[in-house]
């Protein structure tokens, strides 16, 4: 199931993570890898410490960055899907539009 603006996501709290020079580094033993997140990705990772609707993430990012909504949807949605694929975050509510 794909990420939509209504989806509710949260990061996997079990994964050890730290911040190195403003970049979050997450270790996943299941994947046998660690994951380096750039600055904006680190901000999103921080937001996902508790369950967040994707729309809320967009709002927060647009308040702090010089970016329009189309760019946000184009850049952030596939990024969140990648984190789900890597099992770094999980979708706790698909958020079907009511």
């Amino acid at each position, binding site marked *: 199931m794909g990420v939509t603006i209504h989806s509710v996501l949260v990061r996997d709290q079990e994964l050890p993570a730290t911040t190195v020079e403003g970049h979050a580094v997450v270790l996943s033993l299941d*994947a*046998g*890898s*660690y*994951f*380096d*997140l*750039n*600055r*904006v*990705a680190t*901000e*999103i990772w921080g937001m996902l410490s508790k369950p967040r609707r994707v729309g809320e993430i967009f709002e927060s990012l647009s*308040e*702090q*960055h*010089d*970016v329009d909504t189309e*760019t946000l949807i184009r*850049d*952030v949605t596939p*990024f969140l899907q*990648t*984190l789900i694929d*890597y099992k*770094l975050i999980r979708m706790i509510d698909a958020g079907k539009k009511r």
Partner: protein
Amino acid sequence: MPSGCDCVPLQASSALASRRGEYELVIARVTDCVILVGTRRAIWYQSCHAAADPIEKLDGLIVRRAAMEKIRAGRTNETQLRVWEPPIVTKIAIGAETKSARPNSDNFPEPPPPSSPGTKLGFSFEMAFPMAARTEK
């Protein structure tokens, strides 16, 4: 009703009269000080605010306003809107990073496996003479 001066006792009044010259001198010194302070304050005010010349005052206002606008603009960009960069996650395999980065590392021979426990001196000694046998009497 008598005035306040009429109520001053005679002795005090005479004492005041006798020291009148002294008091006048003190009053004159205080007056000089007040004038001096006023003059210095006026000089300081002119040097700081250029109040004497309206053109200078206007220039100062323009310069100060321009400087404040720059500061405000910088503060706004810095604290509210940051440059956007697409979020990126980079996956790095743990094994790939811990392996030697030498280009010809495959040419190096594999290190020999560890020797069997029997060939190690301490282990052989322990096998031949168990600790229990050595401590029992």
